[in-house]
């Protein structure tokens, strides 16, 4: 265990904070304003859960994999999963409000309406300014939280609020770093107070980067925030949709706002979630859906049964492309972290070797270099 002071020194002061928000409001000492998280006072405690659960403190991946999937991951690039689908919400209303196929909303709604959870931790708010984390307890609220945000909302702060209000069955829609924090916390909570364990359903989001708070200051210079109906990212530009049309901001201008912590992220596809949802990168009407755990499978089954979701098979070449993208990111990060010697991850040697030496062949499968 580490102290809050250590967390500040190793993560916050080094710009490694992902902005996940788990430490925020967990105690009175971590606070957030406009996506800047800070330790406002040293609590003085010799050991803190804050240090344990931070996604950028040492993380024992094999152990987390083992706990969640009962085995070491079979797919070194996308993490363990049971099914790879394309999916979309069946209801047009949900699809319209969603970023792509509305799958997150449909699944969240399924979890709520089947009584699996009492509410869903989401982010809402204006499209072109700091999103607001909140705890959605009805369909309206869930739909208010739909569509992508491109900055690091401290969503998990709302998870704590929900727990404090006495909720014990909670779904969280979160970025990969947030999923990691939740899983680390589950391990530590099981150790400290097994009787109080929260029933947690984790809907992970694909995420290759999030933008720093300064991004919104920049965005204001391009488009009035209140006019933005939707933000999206294409291969070359950020697209702000307004009533009057689309405003394109070249990605080159956006990239400088990527949080440093995201450059160190090893997990673009929320590998520790129950289900992970992302874009298809070619069809805005559909999502990629990775069903990872048994709990995730059950959720998708219920969504289909309720008629909230429809599925289809993915395009093989797009699966390959996703694997390739994940591998590239992992390799970059693995190399950088190895150089720094301050790796927060503790992957197995075998796994690291796979990432550093492996290739993705045309079938999207792992192949080793000829040497």
């Amino acid at each position, binding site marked *: 265990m580490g102290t809050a002071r250590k967390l500040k020194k190793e993560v916050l002061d080094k710009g490694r904070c992902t902005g996940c928000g788990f430490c925020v409001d967990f105690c009175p000492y971590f*606070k957030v*304003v406009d996506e800047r998280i*800070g330790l406002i006072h040293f*609590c003085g405690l010799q050991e803190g859960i804050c240090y344990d659960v931070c996604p950028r403190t040492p993380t024992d991946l094999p152990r987390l994999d083992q706990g969640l999937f009962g085995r070491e991951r079979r797919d070194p690039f996308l993490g363990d999963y049971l099914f790879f689908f394309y999916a979309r919400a069946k209801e047009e209303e949900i699809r319209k409000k969603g970023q792509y196929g509305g799958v997150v909303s449909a699944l969240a709604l399924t979890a709520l309406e089947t009584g699996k959870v009492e509410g869903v931790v989401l982010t809402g708010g204006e499209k072109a300014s700091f999103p607001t984390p909140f705890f959605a307890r009805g369909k309206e609220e869930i739909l208010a939280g739909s569509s992508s945000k491109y900055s690091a909302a401290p969503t998990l702060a709302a998870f704590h609020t929900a727990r404090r209000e006495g909720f014990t069955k909670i779904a969280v829609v979160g970025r990969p770093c947030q999923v990691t924090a939740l899983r680390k916390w589950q391990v530590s909570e099981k150790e400290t107070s097994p009787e109080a364990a929260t029933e947690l359903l984790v809907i992970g989001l694909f995420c290759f980067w999030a933008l720093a708070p300064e991004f919104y200051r920049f965005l204001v210079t391009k488009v009035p925030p209140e006019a933005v109906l939707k933000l999206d990212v294409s291969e070359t530009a950020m697209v702000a949709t307004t009533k009057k049309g689309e405003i394109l901001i070249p990605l080159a201008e956006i990239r400088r706002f990527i949080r440093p912590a995201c450059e160190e992220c090893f997990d673009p596809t929320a590998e520790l979630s129950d289900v992970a949802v992302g874009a298809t990168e070619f069809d805005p009407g559909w999502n990629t859906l990775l069903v990872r755990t048994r709990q995730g499978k059950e959720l998708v089954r219920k969504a289909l049964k309720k008629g909230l979701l429809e599925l289809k098979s993915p395009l093989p070449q797009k699966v390959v492309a996703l694997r390739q993208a994940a591998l590239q990111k992992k390799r970059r990060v693995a190399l950088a972290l190895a150089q720094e010697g301050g790796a927060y991850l503790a992957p197995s040697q075998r796994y690291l070797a796979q990432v550093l030496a492996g290739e993705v062949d045309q079938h999207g499968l792992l192949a080793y270099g000829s040497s």
Partner: protein
Amino acid sequence: MGFLPTVALDQPGKKVFLSGNEAFARGALEAGVAYATSYPGSPTAEVLEILSALAKTFNFYVEWSVNEKVAMEGAAAASFAGLRSLVVMKCDGLNVAFDFLTSLALAGTKGGMVILVGDDPGAHSSAKEEDSRYLGKLAHIPVLEPADPQEAKEAMVAAFELSEFLRQPVMLRSVTRVCHAGGDVALSKLQRINRLPFLDREERFITWIEFHATAETKIAQAAAWGENTPLNTYVGPERTKWLLITEGPCFYYAREAVVLLGWEEKVGILKLGMVWPLPEEFLKKHLMHAEKVIFGEEVEPFTEENVKALVAQYGKQMGFINFYGKKSGHVAGPAGPGLGEMNPDIIMQALKRIEEEEQGLPVPQEREESLVAPGELPNRELAFCPGCPHRASFWALKGALELDGRGGFVLGDIGCYTLGKGRTGYNLLQTMHAMGSGAGLACGFGQLSRFGFNQPVVAVGGDSTFYHAIIPALVNAKYNQADFLLVILDNETTAMTGHQPHPGTGLRATGEGAEKIALEEIVAGLKIPLFISDPYAVDETRAIIFRLLQEKGPRVLILRRTCALIAAKTKKPRVYVDPARCLGDACGCARFCSRVFACPANIWDEEKGKAVIDEVICNGCGVCASLCPQRAIVVEEAVLVS
């Protein structure tokens, strides 16, 4: 005339119990004061409060002025028009008014004008212990100093008479112990002076170099007056070798020490009721026989220096005298020469030491334990009152600065929030000087970015302080575009000195209504970006401050919440800890409420290992409830207090 408080009884000869401050007010009534002004400051803040309550009945004018300089200028104007006027302030206030005073003393006055200055030896309710006697001397005006409430009244009347005789303002210096002590005061007749204020077109009050000589002449006249005033006294044997020269409350400490030692026949005590200029003949008469002269005075060795100079002046007549005081270290304050208050113990030990030295006995290096004072009193930490909005403001400020992370800092000012220098304000204040100096310093820091300075600068100051001295700094900030955030800690009163009204309260000294001069209107008039927040809403306030730290140029945030001591008089919700929800040390908050936020009402039950609220002192603000991570603190619906 309806019911009159004791201080205003029209019963000459009757003895009543009055505090020193009441006695000063009584003295002003007996002298027929027509015009009284003040800016509140301890230890003399009550004087104008007492006069305010009597102003209507006795038909004189009172005013809480926005600072001591305008207060003194107003009083001077009344004097120029022939009225008797009084201006009351603390020592720090005299510095504010001093530019005017040094001019006034050359230009002279007409109606009796008294400047009552409260010094605070030991700084009980001040930031520093300044000795105003030097300022009186520097300004060429007489300085009187009473020793008890009876003398406070007598000295006030005498000061008016002397002032009118000299056509010069007279300073009345008092210290905390005299202002706040109580004693029997024999009343004299209440004087009504009905003068028609008038400034003759031939009369001039002009400060000019040639009047320096006039001022010196007046001081010489004052010295002559001092030879006969009953304020200067001597008790003891006719011709004594041991002469203790004292003034103010030190007279009583000296007498107590001499009596306890049984040295009444050995030591004579000379008390100066007029400390400047010196009554030379009166002093010479007693110095002539003295071989040992001991000084009992508070703070600086003012009289010691003046008497030594006098002895040097008349060396031949004086003979050889040994001096014992602050300079020799014999009569040092508890923390050293020139520091702190005197007491009988110090004087007694000084006398014993002088005796031992004379007999060639070894002198103990350490001061003995107290011979007369009771045992140690428990220490009480300086802290904001329970529910004080400043505590919440400082917590929000600290959070915002930490979140910002660029090493931003806070410049302090004078008011309750001065305590922010300590633990109760999370040690945030890094500078603290005079009224308005926080904003003034911020003007300087706010220009340093051109040299690569990147730290956010925050100045805090209170509402009353804003009207007093922050406005010029803010105008300067706007004019020169200084980069800083001014946080006005607006508790809607002058809290530190006892809730006196100010221009923002909509009330005047006598309680009659005045048109409010809102802080925000002044700031808006300067076209400086302005925000207002409730400090009790800590999260929102922290966010606002954080965002304002990112901006450039001057910015103002008003944190507005009525002083908890006033608010609790009308509405006081019950706040308590739900023991079922408080997790104690298992929480992980590390006793946030009682240890870190540290409102005096947040305490820790060692036996149960849980937080509790001391409901006796809690003012019901509920801020701790909003900060408890377990939401274990419950705020009940507010109950109206009748």
